[in-house]
């Protein structure tokens, strides 16, 4: 019997993972807002311990998918497991997940440190962990200043610090390089690689395809709420022939999908 595409995708993802487990697995996940299908029967598998790029044009359903995975939205249909736990039980997996969703949100009149402490208290994380993540994103020297005085890039780094707070096994980042200068982007790239070396899984949504190509092991390409591709990044690039860039491949797939 030939395995279903879903089963073969899961098999491929588990074989890719260093310990044979999946960080994220969705099956027919859907979310509609009125008549608009934001996520439409999405089936993807992300192995543990990889940097998984999550790409797609504006309105493809990336942020909605991320919100579904974080338990902020209720799916209309389908199922998912995150770190082996069902989507319906966010308390069982969210303590091991860190997230930066769209534009990072803060209390502007509070300092960067207090913003982190608010979430550290809530998540039961130690005071020293706040100092550690501030150090990690190089914000220690401005930690006592109100967030309203921060530049866009500093706010972005504070958003990443919030995501790192629980020392997560799975890090979900939605456009983490927004507002970062070239040095900040390089530092972000190094940070992601360092986290992957620690065995963490990073689910990275970004429009910076050139940047993504440098760090990603796994790719999920989304369009109109459906997965156009979910698998090893190398497989996708090889489909176009040696030397094809992710950007070229992305455009070719989108064009093919529209046709």
């Amino acid at each position, binding site marked *: 019997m030939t395995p279903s595409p879903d089963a073969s995708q899961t098999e491929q993802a588990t074989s890719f993972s260093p310990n044979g487990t999946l960080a994220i697995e969705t099956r027919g996940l859907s979310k509609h807002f009125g008549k608009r299908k934001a996520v439409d029967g999405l089936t993807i598998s992300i192995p543990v311990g990889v940097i998984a790029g999550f790409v797609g044009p504006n309105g493809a359903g990336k942020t909605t998918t991320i919100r579904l995975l974080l338990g902020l939205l209720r799916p209309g249909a389908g199922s998912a497991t995150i770190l082996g736990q069902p989507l319906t039980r966010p*308390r069982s997996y969210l303590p091991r997940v860190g997230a930066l969703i769209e534009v990072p*949100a803060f209390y502007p009149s509070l300092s960067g440190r207090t913003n982190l402490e608010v979430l550290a208290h809530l998540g039961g994380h130690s005071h020293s962990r706040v100092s550690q993540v501030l150090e990690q994103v190089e914000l220690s020297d401005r930690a006592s200043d109100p967030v309203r005085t921060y530049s866009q890039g500093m706010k972005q780094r504070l958003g990443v610090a919030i995501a790192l707070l629980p020392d997560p096994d799975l890090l979900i980042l939605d456009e983490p390089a927004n507002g970062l200068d070239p040095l900040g982007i390089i530092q972000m790239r190094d940070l992601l690689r360092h986290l992957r070396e620690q065995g963490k899984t990073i689910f990275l949504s970004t429009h910076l395809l050139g940047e993504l190509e440098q760090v990603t092991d796994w790719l999920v390409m989304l369009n109109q709420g459906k997965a156009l591709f979910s698998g090893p990044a190398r497989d996708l690039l090889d489909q176009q022939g040696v030397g094809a860039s992710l950007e070229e491949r992305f455009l070719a797939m989108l064009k093919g999908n529209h046709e």
Partner: protein
Amino acid sequence: MIRAFRSEVLKFRRWSVLAGSGVMIAATAFIAYLTFHQITSGATGPELAPLIQAFPTPQGLISVVGQARSLIIVIALIMVTSNIAAEWSQGTLRNLLVREPGRLRLLAGKMLALVLFVTISLALTLAISAALILAAAHAQGISTAAWTSSEGIRTFLSFFGNEVLCLVGISLLGMLIAVLTRSLGAAVGVALAYVLVPEGVIAMVWQDGSKWFPVRVLNFLPGSVFPPAVGPTPPQGYTTALLMALLWMVGFVIVSAVVFRRQDINA
């Protein structure tokens, strides 16, 4: 829930939160002093007559200090409503829910902290206003023996207890408005409009029915401590008003919990 409470307490450092408390203290003290000045300067009029009558009695101090009660209710309602609704408008709710996915625990911890803050603000407001009026009375050689007698103190504490109960109900109403509107501007607008239109205008033309409206019922509780002419004393009786107030509070909690638990967070 305790983690959510402790997390919320950290946010009280914001100037916008402290400003609400400051406005409550300043406005109440000002109105109390204005009332005291009118009474002691010999002003007359049908509105002042019950206050002048109550002034030398053990209920005199609360009659003066309690003149800003409606304002305290409005300020407390805006403080709680804006605090909760801002989590949606600022987008910070998604951060909170990722760290505490138990939505009811988050809401309960947050409300516990907000009610505590409102209670502390009220205690400071009444203490500062009472101290101001006592000092002003001493300065003018007016006897305060009735106010500081055991009955006067008991009346004051009874007023404080009932006012706390009233503000707990108002805070729960604020929570409901914030959960339903999910936007700072809309929440504050709806809260003010509700106090002004159904509870204000409709109550004027439909007095019999309006005595069951939530803000009026809640306001009857501290009102029952005042002399009947100062009021507002509950026309349905204190016990009935108290039961009705508790029913409203339970209703606010149930609706807020059901809606918030199932709500999509798009903020």
